[in-house]
């Protein structure tokens, strides 16, 4: 008899096989992290069912390692176990795709055996699907049913769960259909698996689907079939392949009674990194609660109140908060609810209640804030909408008028800001998509461990040895928690550890603080997550300061909005009255805006009386139908300029150039050089989603930046278009602009041609010129270039090459000059109109709309003019920075930041591609240059997909702060 046990990240499976290899018993269940207990149960059940004392037994699975060590049952690595099972049961398999709770695996069985598992930064698996279903407020199997009804597909990030979540949230908030989102989620899982694991190897032949998600969700299988263009097979016992493999791979007779005995006596050792407990005694806790209970807002009984009142709504990403206050700021009513994917019905029923039960309360001002600000404002005809940061600051001042720092941790966001000496917001910190260790994160863990959230958090208060879980994103945290469980940490200590990690994440990842002095002494903490005493205590402990937590910490956004409403009320409100509310009607339709190349997916909300609200748009065009004014946006100008470099047919044939990365700036150079030499230069078209998908299967490293990943699609497009020579040189060095200590390209820009060469199968079909070229040495370049070209073509006379090179250098200079002239023009016209000027900085390739996601349009929509860093980077003398200034593109950032300091009407916004290692260095330095001159630093992280909602908040906060500062400084001087 053979027994195989598979202890995965979320489930435990076992099979018992007779000597002929027939499965006689099997079972599959969730273990809810009770790994030891469940394994013990399994062993006991098996012992009972079979009556045998000895059996060939082995254990497998990611959570099985600990057990295996503890009771000396041999381990069969899980992927290897699948392979053993496949070999026995389905020997004609070519490729197997296995998705588990937290792991994704692809096994290439034939044609060079290769097994791959997802790296540590990838979560598009079972746990991810569960999380998404929770977000949609349905069960995973309902999600599968929903997906069948899908009509359209949204693009959802396929990098990791957290990203996807931030993509889905805004869709929900905009009112997208559940069925469409459900289907999109399955496709996201497929894309993630392929992008992360195929790495250039085609998935073809007999494909087998294994593991829970692929067994349970037919729509996931069809998404795979559809994407891979084949029909995969989900075999019988597809849940049990690992267990079967473990059984078949077992080569040691194990005494079951002995194993049961060892396991039941297994002492939990608690051998893990731990930190100080949150509270050492009840007395300490009592003192703490007493101190914090002081910060309350007076309440007024709504039943007896008669008169004017103000309504504030904070439609957050996962929750909706509403308050009604009196003119003095006292609270009449409040509500805090999960928005269940749609905030509209919540507000409707709140208002209905209000009108029905409290007819004497008269709303004379109503303001909304948060993600759903505009939706709610339009739906219920509120008087105003304000950006969240403003709302929170307004509320915080109510508790501490001279507050220096506000930190708000909500369900999905961390928002922090520092308040300067003049009462202006002088730095804003928002969490990046990849570090959202926030409220929903704690909730997800609570649910995974089968605990209600408030109870779960309380568990940690008196934990004796909280687990140190570090400060990274949720996906990492999953495995840290797994490790902690393996090391015997109790649920109390894990709970405390998670609360502490939320705080560390906010402090070290988002704020980048290293001491309390960075934040100031007067701190207000708020947001639903701080209602959790463990989180609050962890924050005070970590920073060594006592902070103010308003009793209404979770309602602060709504309260701030209501305060704003009361200050700006003109005595009456437009808000829908009881009668209008009775006729209220809300329907959602999707469409695509075809007015420009961004092709925004629009969500059209239709309300009663033909009222309409469109969301998803970047600019005003679909709403106003007016053509946006592009003239003050250098991003547009640059794209237009690149279009001028059209193919000119020539005697030497065609050369294709993939338009990505540094080509965005060097096209003028190469185009001129090759055209002069008689080549017809054909460029790949502007990037789009489809093009990315075309190349995604050949990406070897899933953590490289998105601009690099896009390159695969560009090269593939050229090949598919029949171009047979592709020019994409390696370049360690860029032009020396004499602003730094060196003039490198970053490693990815420098050598990505090597990756293309090594990983794209079709590259063998073309002449791929990826030699190393050094344009930084104009004197040497022509000769070197001639040598390189002579490897691929008949030798070109040096004189001819020299002349072409001269023209190329001249054209590059000319291009830069034109960019700068255009920039000058934008600046002066903006000044005539009194507009703010934003230096939207990044790298040359950030002008690609598929990379910047139309953020330039968003900025323009805020009525600002846009220039890029290269327009002003030559306007300062060389200066020293506190980092090694050795990359050409990055030197421009420092120089631009320095220049912005001298211009009152300019601000810098830095675009950062996710995964850009060098920007870990530049962002801190750019921030410190800007802050040294009293400017606000704004960073926008962008990736394959970007949550434009978060970007909007950032930009609006910036503009609100600029406005504030203008007002304040006006007051000061006036």
């Amino acid at each position, binding site marked *: 008899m053979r027994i195989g046990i598979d202890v995965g990240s979320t489930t435990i499976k076992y099979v018992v096989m007779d000597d002929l290899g027939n499965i006689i018993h099997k079972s599959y269940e969730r273990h809810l992290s009770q790994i030891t207990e469940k394994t013990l149960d399994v062993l006991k059940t098996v012992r009972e069912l079979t009556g045998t004392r000895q059996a060939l037994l082995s254990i497998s699975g990611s959570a099985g*390692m600990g057990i295996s060590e503890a009771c000396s049952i041999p*381990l*069969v*690595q899980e992927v*290897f176990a699948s392979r053993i099972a496949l070999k026995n049961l389905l020997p004609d398999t070519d490729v197997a795709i296995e998705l588990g709770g937290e792991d994704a695996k692809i096994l290439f069985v034939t044609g060079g055996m*290769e097994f791959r598992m997802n*790296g*540590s930064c990838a979560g598009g698996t079972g746990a991810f699907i569960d999380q998404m279903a929770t977000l949609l407020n349905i069960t995973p199997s309902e999600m599968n049913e929903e997906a069948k009804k899908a009509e359209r597909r949204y693009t959802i990030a396929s990098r990791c769960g957290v990203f996807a979540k931030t993509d889905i949230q805004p869709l929900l908030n905009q009112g997208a259909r559940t069925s469409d989102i459900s289907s999109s989620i399955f496709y996201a899982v497929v894309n993630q698996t392929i992008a992360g694991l195929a*790495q*250039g*190897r085609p998935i073809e032949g007999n494909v087998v689907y294994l593991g829970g998600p692929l067994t349970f969700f037919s729509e996931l299988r069809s998404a795979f079939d559809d994407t891979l263009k084949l029909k995969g097979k989900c075999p019988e016992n597809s849940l049990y392949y690992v267990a079967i493999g473990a059984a078949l791979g077992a080569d040691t007779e194990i005494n079951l009674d002995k194993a049961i005995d060892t396991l039941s006596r297994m002492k939990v050792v608690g051998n893990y*990194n731990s930190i100080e407990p949150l509270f050492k005694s009840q007395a300490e806790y009592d003192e703490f609660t007493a101190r914090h209970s002081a910060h309350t807002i007076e309440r007024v009984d709504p039943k007896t109140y008669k008169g004017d009142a103000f309504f504030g709504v904070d439609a957050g990403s996962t929750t909706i908060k509403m308050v009604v206050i009196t003119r003095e700021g006292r609270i009449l009513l409040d509500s805090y609810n999960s928005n269940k994917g749609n905030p509209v019905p919540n507000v409707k029923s709140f208002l209905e209640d209000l009108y029905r039960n409290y007819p004497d309360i008269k709303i004379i001002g109503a303001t909304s804030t948060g993600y759903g600000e505009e939706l709610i404002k339009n739906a219920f005809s509120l008087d105003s909408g304000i950006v969240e940061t403003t709302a929170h600051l307004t509320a915080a001042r109510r508790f501490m008028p001279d507050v220096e720092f506000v930190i708000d941790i909500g369900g999905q966001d961390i928002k922090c800001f520092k308040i300067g000496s003049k009462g202006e917001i002088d730095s804003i910190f928002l969490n990046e998509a990849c570090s959202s260790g926030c409220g929903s994160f704690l909730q997800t863990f609570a649910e995974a461990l089968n605990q209600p959230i408030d109870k779960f958090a309380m568990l940690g208060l008196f934990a004796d040895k909280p687990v140190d879980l570090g*400060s*990274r994103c949720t996906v990492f945290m999953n*495995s840290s928690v*797994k*490790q902690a469980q393996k090391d015997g940490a109790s649920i109390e200590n894990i709970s405390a550890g998670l609360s502490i990690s939320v705080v*560390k994440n906010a402090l070290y*990842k988002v704020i*980048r603080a*290293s*001491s309390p002095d960075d934040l100031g002494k007067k701190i207000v903490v708020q947001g639903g997550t701080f209602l959790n005493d463990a989180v609050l205590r962890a924050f005070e402990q970590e920073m060594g300061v006592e902070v103010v937590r308003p009793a209404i910490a979770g309602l602060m956004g709504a309260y701030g909005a209501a305060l704003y409403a009361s200050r700006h009320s003109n005595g009456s409100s437009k808000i829908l009255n009881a009668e209008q509310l009775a006729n209220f009607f809300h329907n959602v339709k999707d469409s695509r805006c075809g007015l420009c190349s961004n092709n925004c997916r629009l969500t059209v909300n239709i309300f009663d009386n033909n009222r309409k609200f469109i969301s998803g748009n970047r600019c005003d065009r679909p709403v106003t139908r007016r053509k946006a004014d592009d003239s003050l946006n250098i991003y547009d100008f640059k794209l237009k300029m690149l279009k001028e470099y059209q193919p000119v047919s020539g005697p030497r044939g065609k050369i294709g150039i993939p338009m990505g990365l540094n080509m965005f700036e060097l096209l003028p150079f190469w185009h001129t050089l090759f055209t002069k030499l008689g080549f017809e230069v054909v460029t790949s078209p502007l990037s789009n989603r489809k093009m990315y998908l075309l190349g995604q299967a050949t990406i*070897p*490293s899933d*953590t490289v930046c998105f601009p*690099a990943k896009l390159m695969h699609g560009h090269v593939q497009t050229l090949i598919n278009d029949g171009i047979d020579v592709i020019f994409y040189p*390696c370049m*360690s060095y860029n032009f020396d602009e004499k602003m730094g200590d*060196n003039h*490198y*390209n*970053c*490693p*990815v820009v*420098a*050598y990505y041609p*090597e*990756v293309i060469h*090594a990983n794209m199968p079709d590259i063998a079909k073309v002449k791929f010129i*990826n030699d*190393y070229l*050094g344009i*930084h*040495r104009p004197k040497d*370049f022509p*000769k*070197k270039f001639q*040598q390189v070209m002579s*490897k*691929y073509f008949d030798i070109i006379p040096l004189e001819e090459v020299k002349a072409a090179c001269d023209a190329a250098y001249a054209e590059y200079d000319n291009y830069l000059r034109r960019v700068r002239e255009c920039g000058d023009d934008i600046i002066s016209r903006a000044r005539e109109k009194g507009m703010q000027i934003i230096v939207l900085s990044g790298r040359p390739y950030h002008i690609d709309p598929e990379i910047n996601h139309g953020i330039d349009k968003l900025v323009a929509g805020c009525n600002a003019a846009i220039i890029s860093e290269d327009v002003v980077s030559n306007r300062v003398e060389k200066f*020293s920075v506190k*980092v*090694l200034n050795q*990359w050409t593109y990055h030197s421009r950032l420092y120089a631009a930041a320095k220049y912005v300091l001298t211009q009152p009407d300019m601000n810098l916004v830095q675009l950062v591609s996710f995964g850009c*290692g*060098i920007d*870990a*260095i530049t*962002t*801190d330095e750019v921030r410190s240059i800007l802050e040294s001159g009293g400017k606000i630093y704004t960073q926008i992280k962008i990736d394959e997909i970007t949550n434009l909602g978060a970007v909007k908040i950032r930009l609006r906060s910036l503009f609100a702060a600029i406005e504030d500062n203008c007002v304040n400084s006006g007051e000061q001087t006036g």
Partner: protein
Amino acid sequence: MAELKHDKKSDRILFTKEMRRDYKILAPNMLPVHFKLFEKVLQRAGYDVEVLTNDGHQVVEEGLKHVHNDTCYPALLVIGQMIDALNSGKYDVNKTALMITQTGGGCRASNYIHLLRKALKSAGYANVPVISVNMSGLESNPGFSLTPSLIMQVVAGLVYGDLLMLLNNQVKAYELNKGESEALVDSWAERLLEQFSHGKGLLGDDFRNNLKRIADEFDAIPVKRVPKVKVGIVGEIYVKYSPLANNKLEEFLASQDCEVMVPGLMGFVLFKIDNRLDDIMLYGGSTIKYKFVSFLKDFCTKMESAMLDALREHPNFVVPSPYAHLRSLVNGVIGYGSKMGEGWLLTAEMLELCESGYENIVCAQPFGCLPNHINGKGMIGRIRKVCPNANITPIDYDPSATKVNQENRIKLMLAVARENLDERIAAQATKNAKAGDIEVDIISDNQGARNADNVIEVEIETSEDKPENQSAGVE
């Protein structure tokens, strides 16, 4: 505290001659044996250097606190280790300087020193001077100079370190008396330090004799050579070597009953020197510089040969390929211009490991390491084309990557490796049986030249349209 002098241009605090007299200099640790030897060499040159050995949780904590969390893990650890040391109270912070290397390459690593200064400022140690050890003319200090003689001594220390590490790995897995090999490493470290303090062992015959004796003594350790899974470790240089960074990877592999091969540090040094020559060849440049750099390269090559020669006398040992061979392996696979970080050398080391029987490879890198996107993960597919047996697992390291995840992936690689090994043993057995041997002896003793069985023929595609740019550029 000595008087603080600032560099005029960058405003950094200089390490002055006065400081050289009474400052303690703390340096990070990457390779325990090597760095111990370097420490001695530097002490002899008049610098009160101490290589840090503090590790543990606190190091990571300090790193997380003071370094941008998206920065590479090695920066976080090295800086965390230094700050933790300054915090420890063991050193007079008014009389302590820090030392860190700077390669001047295009990857983030050249920025460590700046990140360190930022971190020092935020941790309240703004007055602690930092010495850059570099050969790119990046930062200089009046109180510290890398003289030619010092460089030569450091290189000698490096060769000893490489040899001890190499032999220890090759013997440790098979020794009959556990711990004997480690003990010999310690004993040699002691002996070398003793010699160094008398100005001996660093040059000429002294040096060669030592190398020879080291090899002899390791070969004399009684071993039982059974076929074991042989694993090579490559990757980002700090994570590859430092147990602090790679969660004691070598120890873990040993516990899984593997023989480990970690390519030495000399390859990296030669690679970095060679980069300058390649730059001149690829893009043009000064012939004077070319000659000077060539001289340095020749010197290091000679030192490398001395070590390889010592090994060649012992058929029991796998002799690693010389740098020149590593270089030739990537011809047609990746260009020599790819020089940032570990550059093409990383690809070359993987190919070389496959060639010498260590086709099971852990490619260790910090999470998000830029050069590794290219030379590590980016080249694995290509390496497998050249060498279909290659069984490579890339592992990311960072403060919150968990051991469970890492070990699970390594175990997968090992499961495949074991299967391959079993097949090879079985094939060998059939072959032997056919040849008439009745007993299948899979256990060979000290006599067997065991590399012979395991060597896999590797044919490198030489792409004809990409000849090496040898002659070009140097007039």
